[in-house]
């Protein structure tokens, strides 16, 4: 399969009062159609910045993003984003939230009935058809995130961008959501970029895991191919030696090669020497 999305040598420099801050340095990644790619790294390493550049919410300082042969210059529904904290409009019901997106993307292409069916289809896909007419404050965190995913899917994006979509959920709900996402992915085979800091989530869901080095001047450290058979089952995988090897590869990268230096400790000399010897 050919490259759908080309993240081409991106540098990202933010101006700050104390001079410029280089967040990203030469991030280069090609993603094929139908591929599920996770970005993993310690917090503050610029994962979200990469995603925001792909979304068009930020403009890269140098380099650029090319989607299906066209350069990305502004946000757009063909690169739908699932935000970390759902970002549903609190005054609209689940149905209306999805409707807003459908109206905007398919406003003239679908008639009323088609739109209604499409909205309901997407809510059904995330198992939210029972609470379509509830507002965000009447449903749980996991359910809100489901609606957020339904809204993004309803835009029929070329690339689905997910910014730590399950980061704010408890472990059980998160596992449930991951299973749901795999189910949907099985059906739709979307191209997905997902940011996560959960190693299990990355291995379970991804085709490739992109591991990022720590900032400033963060870049891609290693890329791990996850060649596990689909559909994947978390229970049987937990005993699978290959799964565990992949998992330990990611852990090794994160906790040995790119150990997060605790800035508070490194300020005192004695403690920083202690961590070096440890």
């Amino acid at each position, binding site marked *: 399969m050919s490259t759908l999305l080309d993240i081409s040598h991106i540098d990202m420099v933010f101006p700050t009062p104390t001079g410029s801050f280089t967040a990203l340095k030469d991030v280069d990644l090609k993603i094929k159609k139908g591929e599920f790619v996770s970005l993993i790294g310690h917090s503050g390493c610029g994962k979200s910045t990469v995603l925001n550049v792909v*979304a*068009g*919410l930020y403009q890269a300082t140098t380099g650029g993003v090319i989607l299906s042969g066209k350069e990305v210059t*502004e*946000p*757009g*529904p063909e*690169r*739908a*984003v699932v*935000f970390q*904290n759902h*970002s549903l*409009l*609190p*005054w609209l019901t689940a149905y209306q939230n999805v409707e*807003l*997106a459908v109206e*905007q*993307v398919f406003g003239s292409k679908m008639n009323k009935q088609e739109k209604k069916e499409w909205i309901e289809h997407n809510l059904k896909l995330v198992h939210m058809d029972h609470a379509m007419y509830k*507002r965000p404050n009447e449903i749980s965190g996991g359910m809100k995130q489901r609606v957020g995913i339904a809204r993004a899917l309803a*835009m029929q994006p070329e690339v689905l961008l997910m910014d730590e979509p399950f980061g704010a959920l408890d472990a059980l709900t998160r596992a449930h959501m991951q299973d749901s996402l795999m189910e949907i992915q099985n059906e739709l085979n979307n191209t997905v970029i997902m940011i996560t800091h959960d190693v299990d989530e990355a291995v379970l869901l991804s085709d490739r895991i992109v591991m990022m080095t720590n900032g400033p001047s963060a870049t891609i450290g290693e890329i791990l191919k996850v060649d596990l058979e689909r559909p994947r089952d978390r229970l049987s995988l937990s005993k699978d030696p290959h799964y565990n090897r992949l998992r330990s590869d990611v852990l090794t990268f994160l906790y040995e090669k790119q150990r997060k230096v605790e800035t508070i400790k490194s300020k005192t000399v004695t403690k920083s020497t202690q961590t070096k010897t440890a």
Partner: protein
Amino acid sequence: MTTSSVSSKLDLSSAKSAKLQQFVKATTKMLALPLLGIMIFLLLWSIAAKNIHTSLGEFPGPNAVLNQFNSLYNEHTAEREKADKFYERQEVRNAKRVEADPTYQPKVRKYTGKETFLDQIITSLITVTSGFLLAAIIAIPLGIAMGLSKNLNSAINPIIQIFKPVSPLAWLPLVTMVVSALYVSNDPLVSKSFVNSLLTVTLCSLWPMVINTSIGVSSLDQDLKNVSRVLRLPILTHIRKIVLPASVPMIFTGMRLSFGVAWMVLIAAEMLAQNPGLGKFVWDEFQNGSSDSLARIMAAVIVIGFIGFILDRGMLQLQRLASWDKSATTV
């Protein structure tokens, strides 16, 4: 009777008494305490009133004020009766003249008796509402524009900060002169005094709405802005679907504050502009200087306070109806 039946009866009665106790507690809090507060206030008021001697006699106590409420109401009904009789007489007279001369075009003249206290209350309410609505029509779009554009906000904010603390009494002479220069008509739809009071109310109640609306709009969640950008919503749809609903709670808070200001300003404006409302009533009674005047003014003070309270509650109800965020509308 067995012991168990006795104890179950006791349980029942104790449960009943617990309920009763709760009821008594609730009513004490809701009714008895406010009533007690009012009683003590009335007592202190009447004691203080007896010891204040003005050139118009003793300061009116609660009793004198109550009497004036009564007589204000009687004056109102008497005036209405007079008006009814006037129209009756006019009709009979016109009928007679038409009978005598079929070509006669009957003239209908309006009754020109003096406004009663109730008429003045209604005039005040109409004036304050019109002034407030005019302010809202200007303030809300302006606030939205300022909230959306940081540059516009920086440009306009200093002007707002300077005009916000200006007293209505300072505006009124300017408004009066401008209105009499520009509002020239042989058959004016509304009187100049009404326009003067209205514009003064508008000028003073504009600012809280502008400020609150602009804050509400500018504090729109970045994530929601991003949703709008990803969807590529056109600017008007963005305002209609995202900005407006998100800032409705703040807009209504501003409107409530503004309405409070408007009501305060109105009384002062009416006094000076001689708009026949509550402000003019107070001023006329003060100029009148009869032995009842102070009691009548005190009655007006109470009415003004009561109406202000009811208007505020009305705005709160409106806010609750319009807002999706029910937690933002606590008293």
